[in-house]
């Protein structure tokens, strides 16, 4: 019987699994499919808006937490958050993450908005707009998920906190794709892993360079060898190069997944993908096994401790049925924050704060799940990531920060429990 069973292979699941494994526990990671990493831009966003633009998460967090006592960060604590970010940064070898919890970078998005992120892959870091600068934004004609002119115009109009000016222009190149007009970011990234393709693109961009502009491209600089591709392009162009993440498939996200998963498997971790957890066996206040739908049968996976890292409404882990009732699908944990029947779940304007957004599983400071009366539901279950109640991560820009720090904290709880 494994010590720990983690259900869900997004950021929070991978973090919890890795941390537990490092502490010497035997871990199995179970997932219905592939997780959130493939859809997210690959940056670690700790706190971007709370509700105003946050320049320093470490400075803003205490006040933010005071104002939002139900927020996951209030349970996790700034200390565990900082440690988790440090731990995360140490996971990487050649392809590194840069940044710290003390200051947010301001990175351009694929539409030219500017977005605060705390830790970012090295290949994105030169896009930091806080100090302004001159930029050449390069689009690839066969990539429909990136519009360089719109990015350039919008970032040129952006207001940086320091007031520094940004000037940007756009250009479009047409890399050699054997005539195929419609390639995804991933398809391009695979081509970039090939040196000849990188050379060809470098030459095409080279023809457009002017002065000391930094060069921004969509996030396609390799998926197997991102460090080599990014440094190779920078060397070839002789100036800073940065990636701008766009719609799924997220190449930076996939890189992150591959790296973390490989580390987990190399350490003896077992990964079972394509297996949906559909229920649990319990004995009093302990879960004894998670029941998993395999082909032709339901298979029980017993373990000492269980981590629920299945995601929120977005992954269907918490589901609102056609009769408007809400259910967490593995352990049937009580879901807090769902507006009562008859009350509004959503506001009338799209960018409003919506009542339903904060619904999720309530936990105590050890991240164990609580019921409506504040009592612990299970002694050997911790809840992490997007299924936690209390945040509107996509608006606050706090998703990965919550996933990372909660996964890390849950592992601490588990290790303590074992000793």
């Amino acid at each position, binding site marked *: 019987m494994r010590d720990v069973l983690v259900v869900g292979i997004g950021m929070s699941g991978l973090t919890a699994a890795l941390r537990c494994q490092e502490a010497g526990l035997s871990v199995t990671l179970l997932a219905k499919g592939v997780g959130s990493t493939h*859809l997210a831009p690959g940056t670690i966003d700790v706190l971007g808006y709370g509700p105003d633009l946050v320049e320093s998460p470490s400075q803003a967090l205490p006040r933010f937490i005071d104002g939002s006592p139900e927020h996951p960060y209030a349970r996790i604590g700034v200390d565990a958050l900082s440690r988790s970010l440090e731990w995360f940064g140490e996971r990487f070898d050649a392809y590194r993450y840069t940044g710290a919890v003390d200051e947010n970078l301001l990175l351009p998005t694929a539409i030219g908005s500017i977005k605060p992120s705390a830790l970012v892959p090295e290949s994105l870091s030169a896009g930091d707009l806080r100090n302004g600068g001159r930029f050449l934004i390069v689009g690839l004609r066969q990539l429909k998920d990136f519009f360089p002119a719109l990015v350039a115009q919008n970032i040129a109009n952006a207001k940086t906190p320091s007031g520094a000016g940004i000037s940007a222009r756009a250009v479009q190149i047409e890399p050699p794709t054997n005539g195929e007009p419609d390639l995804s970011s991933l398809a391009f990234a695979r081509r970039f892993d090939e040196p000849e393709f990188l050379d060809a693109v470098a030459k095409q961009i080279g023809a457009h360079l002017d002065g000391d502009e930094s060069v921004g491209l969509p996030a396609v600089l390799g998926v197997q060898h991102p460090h080599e591709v990014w440094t190779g392009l920078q060397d070839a162009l002789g100036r800073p190069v940065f990636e701008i993440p766009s719609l799924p498939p997220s190449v930076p996200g996939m890189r992150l997944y591959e790296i973390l998963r490989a580390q987990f498997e190399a350490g003896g971790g077992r990964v079972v993908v394509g297996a949906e957890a559909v229920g649990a066996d319990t004995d009093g206040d302990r879960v004894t096994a998670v029941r998993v739908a395999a082909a032709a049968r339901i298979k029980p996976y017993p373990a000492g401790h269980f981590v629920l890292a299945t995601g929120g409404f977005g992954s269907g882990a918490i589901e609102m049925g056609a009769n408007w009732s809400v259910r967490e699908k593995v352990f049937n944990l009580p879901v807090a924050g769902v507006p009562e029947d008859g009350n509004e779940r959503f506001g009338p304007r*799209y960018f409003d704060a919506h009542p339903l957004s904060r619904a999720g599983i309530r936990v105590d400071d050890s991240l164990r799940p609580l019921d409506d009366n504040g009592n612990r539901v299970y002694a050997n279950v911790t809840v992490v990531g997007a299924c936690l109640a209390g945040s509107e991560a996509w608006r606050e820009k706090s998703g990965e920060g919550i996933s990372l720090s909660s996964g890390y904290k849950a592992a601490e709880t588990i290790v303590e429990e074992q000793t």
Partner: protein
Amino acid sequence: MKNVQTEVLVIGGGATGSGVAWDAAARGFETILVERKDLAEGTTGRFHGLLHSGGRYAVKDRLAAEECIHENRILRRVASDAIEDTGGYFVTTPWDDPAFGDKFLEGCRACEIPVEEISPSQAFQDEPRINRGISRVFTVPDAAIDGWKLVWDCAKATTEHGGRVFTYHQVLGILRAGDVVRGAKVRNELSGEEFEIHADFTINATGAWAGKIADMAGCPGVQVLAGKGIMIAMNHRLVNTVINRCTMPADGDILVPIRTVSVIGTTDIRIKDPDEPDVTQDEVDRMLDDGEKLVPGFRKARALRVWAGVRPLFKDARAAETTDTRDVSRSHALLDHRDRDGVAGFLTITGGKLTTFRMMAEETVDMMCEQLGAQRACRTSADPLPSSKTGKFMWLGERLKEREATMHEDQLICECELIQRSSLERVMTQRSSTILDDIRRALRLGMGPCQGGFCMYRATGILHDVERMDSWAANRSLRDFLQERWKGVQPILYGDQLRQARLDDWIFQGVLDVEHLPTDQLDDHPASDRA
């Protein structure tokens, strides 16, 4: 002030107005059509897509039924490109009286609607999702009709005959010279320019808004009741045949397979203002429950979008006062203002249903000809609309087949609805529109399961490029589109669609961060919600 000269001015760009413009232009009249928003943005763009066989009215309203089957036959000839020959069933569910089926048969035969009773087991073979408790099934020539395609084809016919179509032109006032209406003063909503259109004859085809225009012409008291109905589009074709409940017309008794979705409708609630139809939770629940009766498991299927359409019901002073607007005559009303108000050069056509739009247009233009003393015969029942010259019906797999041929040449922008970049660029250039919602209506952009989650960003980028817009305007376009979409999606966010909405939130807010795009002074006055 600039003025534009024409013979016939048609106000209102729904099916009725477009039909009148088509008819008038085809008869050789110099015609201008004005519409305050996009064509078919009113009722025509919000119905359930049914081309009636008339079966629905065969028992209750024989006149309406006969009109329907008559027009059904004609439209299949002249508007085939907008029609999919799905056929229809009238089914007796466990909640319906089986004896009604006999009345139904009788009524159809009396109206000469081709009808046949088939065995339920045969129906279940063709339509395996329908309720196995159904005891009687009748086939009729119902069909699905795409309101936007239809209306734009009428507009195309109008321009091919030398006419002009002005969308986003609001009528500010009707011009009178004594007792004769001489046209209208309009404002181009996009440029702000105001000008006059001088016409020999003006036709008010504004449907639920007819009373407002008639008032402007000095013809008060045209009472058009607004009967709101909601409809829900389900993500895929649960059925490939129109399914009707075999009973007296009631709520939620029609399920229409139209393009890639199935639409369940509808309710009927009288509202005061046709510009303010809202969707209530209760109505949504009722429609889902009604769908469940026709297709078990309906509630578990994915609802994409909900909208409200407003039926124009002309209230004849002789009809009884009733809140169920369904009981008010569904036949149309053509008002001769020369007779009624002593005002010449002006007609109002209102009421009716989409199926009879051509007939309504014919009657209207006939009356206009009579008043003008012009002897010109109607052409619309004989000459097909421009896209319908081959007589081929729409079929579901069209776009899928077309894409096979262009897969290696053209980018696919809206993947859900299989829309290619060249189509987008073409429509954007043709319409010179910067409103993404217009493009949505023209091509079904963003009308699939992801409701624009992936394609809206791409379309904004392309629009910015093609229309040489500045980034402020592009940003606004996207934000407006997101708000417009939210209205239609928000009331049905459960299950799969809630999941989708969450992913879309992550894309628009987590990845793109649209909310924090730079804004200019035009954004301080946010775009008003459009009905």
